[in-house]
């Protein structure tokens, strides 16, 4: 009797996971495999037939300066985003968590950017950069302030700023949840041991936050490297290709005026290799420290 009940449970567990397994296999893993396959063809995305050409697309890309510069830009963008997200996210979470008055108000305001679509945010900031900055400049007597999006030195940072403006809210919410899971007793004993506020942060808060930081870093890195919406709506890769993130380049190559679908797939395969390696490195680093490692 007991044995039979045990099997029932095993069966229910299995049935629960089955739809996930099937959906994930067909609409995710199979697509990835297709992507790998397309990357080794000469398909433009429209023609009825195409040929298998092995690794030719990759050979072409490795010698391609435009692709290389795109990769560099993307890395700068994503790494800066991770650093800013972790530092500002933890600071903001600790701050919001310690506020006594107007706590709900502060939280509501800081979470607000996450409620809006990235397109709306990008287009609103575009207008603010174009209309408000020159007007602000005039007020302070500085002439000819142009939108940073029009300058190839600053455009990438302007896009990053707009991206951060929105994307900081989510990690902050996760950090706050992480902070609230830290037992009060730890702070109490740290305080009795004479720990300063910074010591408490360093030796109690931070170790407990390591798993949360890992989650946030992985999600941010991934979203930074694959970032698309903001640059698409703000600059579409320009000016002078200075914001040509890999995500934008892939889109333009795949569906642009002269489609090179297989090349775009080869680019995403290389993006995949980079992301995979980075994530493995990052996970192995983060799991070495922190209280929750098992």
């Amino acid at each position, binding site marked *: 009797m007991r044995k039979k009940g045990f099997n029932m*449970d095993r069966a229910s567990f299995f049935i629960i996971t089955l739809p996930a397994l099937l959906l994930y296999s067909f609409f995710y893993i199979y697509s*990835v495999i297709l992507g790998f396959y397309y990357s080794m063809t000469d398909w433009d995305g429209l023609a009825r037939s195409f040929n298998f050409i092995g690794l030719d697309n990759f050979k072409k890309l490795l010698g391609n300066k435009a692709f290389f510069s795109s990769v560099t830009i993307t890395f700068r963008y994503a790494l800066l985003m991770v650093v800013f997200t972790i530092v500002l996210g933890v600071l903001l979470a600790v701050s919001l968590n310690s506020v006594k008055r107007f706590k709900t108000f502060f939280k509501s305001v800081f979470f607000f950017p996450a409620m809006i679509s990235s397109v709306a945010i990008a287009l609103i900031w575009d207008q603010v950069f174009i209309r408000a900055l020159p007007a602000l400049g005039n007020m302070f007597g500085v002439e000819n302030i142009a939108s940073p999006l029009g300058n190839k030195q600053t455009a990438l940072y302007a896009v990053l700023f707009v991206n951060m403006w929105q994307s900081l809210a989510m990690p902050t919410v996760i950090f706050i949840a992480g902070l609230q899971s830290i037992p009060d007793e730890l702070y109490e004993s740290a305080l009795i041991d004479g720990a300063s506020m910074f010591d408490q942060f360093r030796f109690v808060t931070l170790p407990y936050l390591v798993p949360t930081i890992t989650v946030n870093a992985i999600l941010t890195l991934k979203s930074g490297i694959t970032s698309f*919406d903001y640059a698409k709506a703000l600059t579409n890769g320009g000016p002078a290709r200075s914001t040509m993130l890999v995500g934008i380049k892939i889109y333009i190559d795949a569906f642009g005026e002269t489609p090179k679908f297989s090349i775009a797939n080869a680019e995403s395969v290389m993006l995949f290799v980079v992301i995979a390696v980075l994530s493995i490195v990052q996970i192995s680093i983060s799991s070495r420290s922190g209280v929750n490692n098992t």
Partner: protein
Amino acid sequence: MSASTNNLQAKSPVLHKRGETLIWHFLRNALLCIGIVLIVMPMWLVLINSFKTLEEASQSFFALPRSVNLDNVHELLNGQNYFHHVGNSLLVTVVSMTVVAIFIPMVSYAIARNMRRRYYKFLYTYIMLGLFIPSQIVLLPIVKQMASLNMMNIWGLILLYITFSLTRGVFLFVNYIRVLPIEIEEAAQIDGCTVVQTYFRIVIHLIKPMISTLVIMDALWFWNDFQLPLFLLNRSRDLWTLPLFQYNFKTEYSFDYPMAFTAYLISLLPMLVVYCFCQKYIISGLTAGAVKS
């Protein structure tokens, strides 16, 4: 760190040095104020400029509007299929969200409590592969795949959202459930509960804070997502979700920016209304979770 510190200060005689606290409060408040200005300022500019005519806005971008002029709103609501696009976004978000909120915690529970078995270990690793896979490599072939299945429509989009939300959802839930004490569930099972009963009577209450986090995160993603609808639905105007409507609005009204501001403002309104409810739900959910642990 300091919510708990504040509690301490109320009940414990041991306090931080006064100077230390003052510096911390000063830095904290400065940070929060700068943040609030950065967040509120663009929204404020959108609000005031959406009531202006183009002429008035170009004369005085920062000034309050001379009158509450609703012409832009009228023109927008009459001329564009605004409500149709809201309907599309609503359908996508509600259906995907309901499925995800029921489905992911159960799958994660099954995985988290069977980690020693080969199949579940495999399934977890398999789903975690998504952490290493950039969206582009899926998006390009999926467009061709969906086209050949004749699913370049709202339902295709919903199916993809359910699938694509698995990796993040399972990652968060499995790690959350694994550290929950298993004793309560064992006790329930000794009392004769099946797995499904144990899940619905006990586990679901323990993971509520995480469910609310998942609902918020994914609902916002589905509602606001730009990339997937752009790849899948941009060709037919009828299928546009709200972000696609906004995006395409940019090209139509690139010079009449008060009109564009009105479009953004009106597109934000449904979210603003929902926001009040969500905010309460998040806070109460997270506090409940903290109290239980």
